[in-house]
């Protein structure tokens, strides 16, 4: 995809996990751990996006955001925070952050959000969303496959919208829950499984090609082709030197 991300994070274990997780998706990542280095790196490297941890030892991550926005730099910034309360979220968004993610997060969600904020700037929202044979009319909330209308409930329509917006990406149960509920509440019934199964049966009845795939242990993905198995991505990444982090001190 050719995305370059600057990660501002002082926890080496988490930083490394994010770096590795992003490189598995061919997202290049550079790690800095202090506010000063971060401000300099944004200016010098011009990353496509910044992942910013708010709790840096001794420093407030928001200072990076303030400095970047003070220079009228529109680089998308995703805030990573352990403080999940409303005030904290609002404070970050008020300073000009593009998105926030509360720790602990799921890697697929981080990836989905990073791709979303890097795309956001050059994407024009039309009145329809399409993916392969699927078409969602955003104004009438009607869904078609190969021109044939599918009778979906509002919940299912909302789910398919999320899937189309994140085509070929893993959506976790938590992300789906959030889409349905606008809360992180998951409940104790198998809510997501039930809805995905219904959506899948409506989507795929009478058609050969499956569209929604279950990624075991991680979530679901909308894709025209069978998702790559895990082993395939293993080899090239570990040998690919260009994806190794370049650390700035």
């Amino acid at each position, binding site marked *: 995809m050719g995305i370059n991300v600057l990660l501002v994070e002082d926890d080496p274990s988490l930083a490394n996990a994010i770096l590795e*997780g992003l490189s598995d998706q061919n997202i290049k990542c550079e790690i800095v751990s202090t506010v000063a280095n971060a401000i300099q790196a944004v200016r010098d490297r011009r990353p496509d996006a910044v992942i910013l941890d708010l709790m840096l030892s001794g420093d407030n991550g928001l200072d990076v955001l303030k400095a970047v926005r003070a220079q009228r730099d529109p680089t998308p910034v995703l805030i990573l925070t352990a*403080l999940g309360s409303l005030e904290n979220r609002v404070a970050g968004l008020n300073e000009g952050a593009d998105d926030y993610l509360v*720790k602990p997060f*799921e*890697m697929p969600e981080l990836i989905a959000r990073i791709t979303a904020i890097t795309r956001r700037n050059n994407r024009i929202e039309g009145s329809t969303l399409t993916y392969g044979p699927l078409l969602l009319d955003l104004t009438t909330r009607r869904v078609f496959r190969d021109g044939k209308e599918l009778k979906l*409930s509002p919940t299912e329509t909302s789910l398919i919208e999320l899937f189309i917006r994140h085509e070929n990406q893993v959506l976790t149960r938590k992300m789906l829950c959030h889409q349905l509920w606008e809360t992180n509440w998951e409940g104790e*019934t198998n809510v997501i499984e039930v809805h995905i199964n219904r959506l899948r049966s409506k989507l795929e009845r009478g058609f050969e090609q499956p569209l929604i795939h279950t990624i075991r242990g991680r979530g679901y993905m909308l894709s025209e082709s069978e998702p790559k198995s*895990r082993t395939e991505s293993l080899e090239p990444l570990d040998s690919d030197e260009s994806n190794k982090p370049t650390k700035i001190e």
Partner: protein
Amino acid sequence: MVLGDEVTTKETEGNLLGQSRMRYWGKYTFRVRTAVILTLFILLTALAVGFAFRNVVSILLDNQTNLDLRDDAQEFVEQLESISGTISPERAQAWNRHAATHELHHWFLRVFDKNEVVVWETISVPEAMIANHLSNTEMQEFGNYRFLNRPVYHSSASNKEKPTGWIQLGCSLELVQDSLSQLDRLLLWVFLIVGVLGPIASLFLSAQLLNPLTDLTKQAAALSVTDRSQLLGLRGSGDELDSLAGTVNALLARVRSQLQANEDWIANSAHQLRSPLAAITSNVEVVLGRLPEGKSSDMLASVLNECEYLNKLVQQLLLLSEANAVGVKAKRSEIRWDEMIRQSSDFFEALASAKDISLKFDAITDCTVFANPEHLRIVLHNILDNAIKYTPPNGSIEIELTKSPENECTLRVKDTGIGISEVDLARVSRRFFRSDSGRDPATTPRGTGLGLNIVKTIVEGLDGRLQIDSVLGSGTTVRIVLPAIA
């Protein structure tokens, strides 16, 4: 069908039900005790005052009588000392007139010679009046009469040792006794009236006295421990009740700061857990993504599952502390509760139909409440989630939203599920309570045991009520009552 008490009563106030009954009785007897003491005091005072008054009157009357008799005796002794020979008819007539008009009732006078033989007496002398022991000059009583004797020494007599005659004069005590018994009757009436009015006045008075205390009790019973703005009102009189209210307020403040410290501790711990949890989850996810399917990846997947559970727990603990603090009342807006329920109906119908449970959204009335939408969704989701989870296949769940004339919105979710035993009912909304009966661990994700506690905290934070009625084996009815916006 309906069993059990309001969860709030059983839950937070523990066995206060018994205590409150006791408190009521205590209040009652205290009032009665005060009234009884007051009544006794009034009656005893009336009795003492009456008794003293009667005695004073009696002593005064007695003294007056005695004084009059002594004065008269002195006067007649002097007259007789100057009379020689017999008593002239004029004098006798004058003395009889004196007797008849004397202010003392039945006043009489007798004159004796030196041999103690009656020489003259007024016609008013009572019959069988004794004449012996004339030498006794003390005040004496005979029958209803009081009398006294005095020796007479004639002015011409040479021997002043031996009296030349005697007089005896006295009067009837009838009038005095009549007056006293009249006074007794009057006092008895007064006492009876005091005896009847006393207890009534005492009850009224003790109620008046205890009114501020009753008010204080009512206020204290309505106090919410978590709402910092709620305090007992001081009347500004600086009396004992004000000092009691002040003490209770200080206690409340201490309890609240302790509670707040606990909640802060939970919130801080949860925050501290998030970063390492994020590191663990992310690392495991990356490794899991690179491993081929097999035993190792299965093991890592279960690590991830546990992380997810921990994450959920941390999330809910934070939500709980947010709801306990000012959070519930922050970020509120007017929400059409009925629309929120209608909008999510298809979401829950799908869940229910997967278990062959029929979900009926019956009477959903227009209802606007003032709440944080995220919190309200959590409440709704949790209650319906529980209903679906604990209702076996082919059961039914009825959802009803009504608005009462008292301007309260009630969401009623009635299921035909497995129900809750009476013992568990008292505990369902406690933190970390989990009843594992009726849940299939294979198909249902592990719960944190915080759900209902969060619901309760949110609902009560919005000045609402959570009420759960249940019969083991036949179903549960959950009611959430929130104040409506007119």
